[in-house]
């Protein structure tokens, strides 16, 4: 092991790589010194908590999804007649196929789960504020792309839920005024959901997954330019506020990753039923509508909005708007204080927002029937109210708690 980097010490300039092949390469393409600067000597705020593990976790899950997905794609047949059977063959006859598919399915669920936690962390600690607006926007773009990828992926096994979920979405798109029918037809590819639709979604699923990697690249570059935010939300002022990435965050990320892998393994090996929809193991049957059409859990809050808003198009606008509004967040919340630790009103408001999101998921699960409808409308109103009213007003009126002088001071070791 190299000599440990003492905290508070200026990063040592990269050793001269003048000789040998490594030096020859590095002078032409600085991958070695670049890696050293960005992943070994890179200064990180020293007060990051466990919520900052999810960036690394998401990266690793993404790689797992690409690896397993590539091999699944080799055995998948994107036609309405064969798709279901080819997935069955992967699960049953392909050696190790069941494990490959289990990893891909568990990975999809936990990818979305980790993404929601990552997003919550950004909201809670104000990571969207200057100078991290592009970081925030690229992250939201990733969220939207991942959701689209997940939806396209769920269509592929062509089970009952795949088919009828796709049916609900294409009908929802059809509710757009004037161009709705055209859009619906473009999405479906023909007058019914069949071979063309399935083949397109297979290609979309595959391409989006790799485009996600590209946007992750932008996202990571952005975080290395602006630096990580931290739980107190003030920028590091002296080297005492920071530690080098290695070994401090390599060790911390490893711990987080292994803990995440443990949850992953427990779900995948012992409780796969928690994440799986049994109805999707019946082949798609356009003649037979299932009693209960329900999206995967990660779409339920949006499904709840879609269903609790009175007009179909209104519901579509609300569901889409709930994501789009996040893009404007850096300009809606103008408070100079980032972390909710020092913003008592917004902090409470954000926790209610999380509760509304959960309530909306339950509304979606119950198809906004009876009292769920009223609850869903209330939660939808609150969701938009938080971003459009509470945050802009609080930015001017809220009495924030005093900020600590520095990160070290906040940790009590100034």
């Amino acid at each position: 092991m190299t000599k440990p980097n003492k905290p508070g010490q200026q990063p040592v300039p990269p050793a001269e790589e003048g000789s040998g092949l490594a030096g020859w390469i590095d002078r032409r393409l600085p991958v070695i010194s670049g890696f050293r600067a960005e992943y070994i000597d890179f200064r990180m705020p020293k007060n990051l908590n466990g919520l900052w593990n999810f960036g690394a976790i998401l990266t690793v899950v993404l790689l797992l999804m690409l690896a397993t997905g590539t091999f699944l794609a080799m055995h998948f047949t994107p036609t309405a007649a064969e798709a279901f059977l080819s997935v069955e063959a992967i699960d049953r006859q392909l050696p190790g196929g069941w494990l490959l598919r289990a990893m891909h399915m568990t990975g999809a669920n936990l990818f979305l789960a980790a993404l929601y936690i990552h997003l919550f962390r950004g909201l809670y600690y104000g990571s969207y504020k200057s100078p991290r607006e592009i970081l925030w926007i690229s992250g939201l773009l990733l969220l939207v792309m991942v959701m689209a990828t997940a939806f396209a992926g769920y269509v592929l096994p062509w089970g009952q839920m795949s088919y009828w979920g796709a049916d609900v979405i294409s009908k929802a798109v059809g509710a757009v005024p004037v161009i709705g029918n055209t859009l619906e037809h473009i999405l479906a590819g023909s007058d019914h959901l069949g071979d063309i639709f399935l083949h397109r979604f297979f290609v979309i699923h595959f391409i989006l997954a790799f485009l996600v990697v590209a946007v992750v690249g932008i996202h990571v570059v952005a975080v290395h330019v602006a630096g990580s935010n931290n739980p107190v939300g003030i920028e590091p002022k002296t080297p005492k506020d920071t530690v080098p990435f290695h070994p401090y965050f390599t060790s911390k990320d490893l711990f987080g990753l292994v803990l995440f892998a443990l949850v992953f393994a427990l779900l995948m090996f012992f409780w796969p039923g928690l994440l799986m929809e049994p109805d999707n193991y019946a082949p798609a049957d356009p003649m037979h509508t299932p009693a209960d059409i329900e999206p995967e859990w990660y779409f339920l809050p949006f499904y709840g909005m879609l269903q609790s808003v009175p007009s179909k198009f209104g519901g579509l606008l609300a569901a889409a708007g709930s994501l789009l509004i996040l893009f404007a967040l850096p300009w809606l919340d103008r408070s100079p204080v980032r972390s909710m630790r020092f913003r008592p009103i917004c902090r409470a408001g954000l926790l209610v927002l999380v509760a509304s999101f959960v309530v909306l998921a339950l509304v979606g699960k119950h198809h906004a029937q009876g009292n769920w409808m009223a609850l869903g409308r209330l939660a939808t109103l609150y969701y938009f109210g938080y971003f459009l009213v509470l945050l802009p007003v609080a930015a001017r009126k809220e009495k924030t708690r005093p900020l600590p002088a520095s990160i070290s001071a906040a940790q009590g070791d100034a």
Partner: protein
Amino acid sequence: MSASSLLRRVSLVCGLALAAVAAPASAAETPAPPHQKWSFDGAFGQFDQASLQRGFVVYDHVCSTCHGMRSLTYNDLSGIGMSQKAITDLAHSKQFPGPADEDGQPTTRPGTPDDHFKSPFASDAAAAAMMGGVAPPDQSRLALIKPHGADWLYAFLTGYRMPPPPGAPMVPGKFYNEWADGHLIGMPPPLVDGGVTFPDGTKATVEQQARDVSTFLVWASDPHRNARHHIGKGVVLYLIVLLLLAFAWKKKIWKRLDGN
């Protein structure tokens, strides 16, 4: 309003919402079939191979006359401990449509281990036409799709009542079963005492057959459960050890900060 009082309210609202969810859900559902003890239950459960093999006998002699299981190949039966020779012999005993002969006449050929289970009907439409309008459902994933899988299958297979209880609706061509939708079903009671003979000498009562074939159908829905649980235990143990090491390393590294 303070943050903590708001927090309390939030949790109250969530709690009420959850309570509201739980109540109608349990009221609306049909009663759950009585729970049986299965060796494959739970996170560490394993299939009982002897029961699986008996269950296949029931499937092969009884269920497969009407129900397909088109996702499985004969080779998959190695998963219930069938020998390669027994699998080949079994596949050989089934006739599959072969290529047309020199005169263009259809031929048949004996099955191979890679063939999928032979369907009892040429198509779903043919099945529906012959079986009174409803095609018997494919059994590849039946135990997974049906809520309470094995428990329901067992309750259903042992749930025929002949004659039906007084006051029960009577429809010609339908049979009374306590666990069928609306208590009436077109499928006649498939199992009779001694209807099959088990090679291992187990007495083939209706209950025994129901138990074994339910086990077999759960296996068909989740054929890699044994391997999944077995590999899972190893992986989880490995990760726990790795977690402890990672934790110790992280502690050791971060302790350096305390000195300053």
